[in-house]
């Protein structure tokens, strides 16, 4: 039995540097400390992405794109296809949990200061992946072509029109016309099932490669470590199974509704709001007055939001510029401030 295994491995080794890869993996160690539970967040994000790919492909078996077909096919999936309700609800809940876990992963990396040199590129790719996940969420939300999705997309893309000079051009580019129509649906579909997943897969590849090449931050300072393979990985897999359970429970007990078909001439339903991960930005834009001085409030808001985003993206670089003795405190307070602001705005947006 073991001779057979060895033969198979050496056959492979002649064609793939498998043993060296396994050798490399066996040296990877994960620090063990009070906060090490956060090390699992990144793996959960990747697992959820794979779950999205799997359920997404399954949904594609029945989904049809078009303003006269999308809603009908989603309704068909939910009502008629065996376990179709499950696939759709798992896909929707999986998307939300993925964004949630990316946030957890990001803030834990931030507070462990794991973004510092030489891991700036890992941080940048991670931020890019968050952006991709949000874009996936936004584009996927429109695909059932129901009332809520239609108006959320209308409001969400309206903001683009406020960008100076290129706003109208940008709006037409994203919507595929002046209004949210079947053309928008086609664009969002293409982005959602081809462009964005491919970019995300590439991004995850780069992100993982960087983690492997650089090893874990604080690996050498930690008092205790455990081998990544198999100790950490098996724990990872066990947790993924529990996360899958959670998705299943949410899907069965809180199934995603199909809603009513989008009607461009209908009035917007009351209390329409974007998905929770856009709520903070949405609430911020709502708070701004119509004009601040000579500048339209919404434009100012977009500039401010982009400024905050860029500031967050550049964390490893401004961090390096802070004098060393104040560096940890500045990072901690900036992070706590960001979390508090994000939470308050999201809850406020949810309640108002």
């Amino acid at each position: 039995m073991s001779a057979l295994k060895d033969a198979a491995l050496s056959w492979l080794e002649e064609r793939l540097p498998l043993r060296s890869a396994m050798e490399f993996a066996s040296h990877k160690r994960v620090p063990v400390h009070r906060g090490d539970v956060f090390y699992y967040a990144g793996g959960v994000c990747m697992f959820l992405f794979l779950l999205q790919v799997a359920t997404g492909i399954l949904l594609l078996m029945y989904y049809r794109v078009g303003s006269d077909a999308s809603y009908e096919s989603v309704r068909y999936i939910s009502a008629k296809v065996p376990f179709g309700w499950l696939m759709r609800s798992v896909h929707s809940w999986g998307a939300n949990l993925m964004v949630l876990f990316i946030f957890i992963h990001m803030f834990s990396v931030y507070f462990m200061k794991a973004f510092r040199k030489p891991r700036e590129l890992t941080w940048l790719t991670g931020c890019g992946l968050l952006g991709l996940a949000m874009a996936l969420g936004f584009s996927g939300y429109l695909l059932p072509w129901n009332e809520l999705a239609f108006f959320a997309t209308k409001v969400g893309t309206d903001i683009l029109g406020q960008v100076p000079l290129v706003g109208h051009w940008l709006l037409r580019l994203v919507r595929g016309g002046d209004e949210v129509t079947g053309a928008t649906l086609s664009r969002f579909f293409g982005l959602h099932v081809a462009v964005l997943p491919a970019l995300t897969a590439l991004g995850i590849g780069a992100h993982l490669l960087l983690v492997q090449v650089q090893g874990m931050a604080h690996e050498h300072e930690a008092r205790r470590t455990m081998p990544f393979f198999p100790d950490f990985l098996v724990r990872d897999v066990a947790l993924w199974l529990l996360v899958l359970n959670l998705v299943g429970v949410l899907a069965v007990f809180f199934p995603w509704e199909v809603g009513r078909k989008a009607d461009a001439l209908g009035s917007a339903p009351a209390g329409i709001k974007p998905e929770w991960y856009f709520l903070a930005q949405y609430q911020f834009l709502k708070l701004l007055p119509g004009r601040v001085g000579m500048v339209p409030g919404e434009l100012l808001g977009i500039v401010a939001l982009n400024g905050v985003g860029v500031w967050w993206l550049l964390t490893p670089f401004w961090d390096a510029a802070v004098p060393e003795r104040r560096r940890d405190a500045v990072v901690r307070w900036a992070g706590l401030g960001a979390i508090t602001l994000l939470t308050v705005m999201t809850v406020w947006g949810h309640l108002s």
Partner: protein
Amino acid sequence: MTLAVLVLAAALAAPASAAVNRCAACHGGIDEKHAALVKGFERDIHREKGLTCAACHGGDPTKDDAAEAMDPEKGFVGAPSKADMPRFCGKCHSDPAAMRRSNPSLPVDQELKYYTSRHGKLLKAGDGRAASCADCHPPHGMRPPKDPTSSVYAKNIPRTCGTCHARQSSDYRAGVHGVALLEKGDTAAPVCNTCHGNHGATPPAAASIAMVCGSCHANNMEFFKASPMAKAWEKKGFHACATCHGNHAIAKPTPELLSGSHAVCLKCHAPASPQLAAAAAMKGTLLSVETAYASAEAAIKDAEVRGMDMEDARDALGQARMAMYQARTVVHSFQPAKVQEVAGGGADLARKAEGEARAAVLDFRNRRIGLGLATFVLTFLAGALYLRVKDQE
């Protein structure tokens, strides 16, 4: 002073070439009541058609002097008395040539019809309380019947007629037609004039009631006319529909009308007669389809509360509802077997819908059981993996 300003204002406002109209200049300033009349006339349909004060009231609107302007020699007639009103309006409304100028599609028989109405006959006999034109069409602000602010817009007619016929109006509001029109907003629902006529308004005669109701309830009328009941009704001089259903406060018919203590059949038939037995059979049939329908609807709601898609069951339920309505219609043939045939189909559809709803609820339970099993298996594997890797360490 005020007068002078008004005159000046009117003079300035009046276009030089168009017919000069000085009436408003004085009448608008007499008192509040006259001011309101002048103001109200601004959105009167007659004004919109290009008519001025003098078109109805005569006189010379170009003169500032009151005596000159309102000179009877120049055709001034002032405000008509109630008895003169039909002729006053009929000057134009009964004249095809005049109507062709402003509204060619409007009939010109209102005056003629009015004198055939109960209102017109009473007025002619000298009864000053009888309604004439202005009682239903308040002048100086009159709107056409399609305008929702008009006194003769469908939804406003019960109020307009109710000014005098208060009891009938409140009965109507309580009946099915009043509820359909005023509460459900179905402007196709009949209102006072649909059954009584408008300018020729009169209570429908016994013989014509079936015709009047049958203009919408066509099948009910056909069935009834072909039934053995029609002849007997005629002989007794009964109102075809109103005998069982009443008139203004028409209640939603229930199977209780057929047998039991509220049965209308008891008016003629003895409680132990075969006719009453047939009525009881029809009542039983209607009740059973209604029960099946209600039960199916409850089951569907039960499934919908659980988030299950019930479109198909709702379709079947909709068909069952149609059959239920048809069965109620067929009652007017007074043939229990026919009612049974239609109602039975409806009950079958309702049972089919109920079956789908029950299956959906069962499916809902199965989802939870399946989830429970899967959760158990996944948690078991997660636990085993964790313990195994712990063991290795």
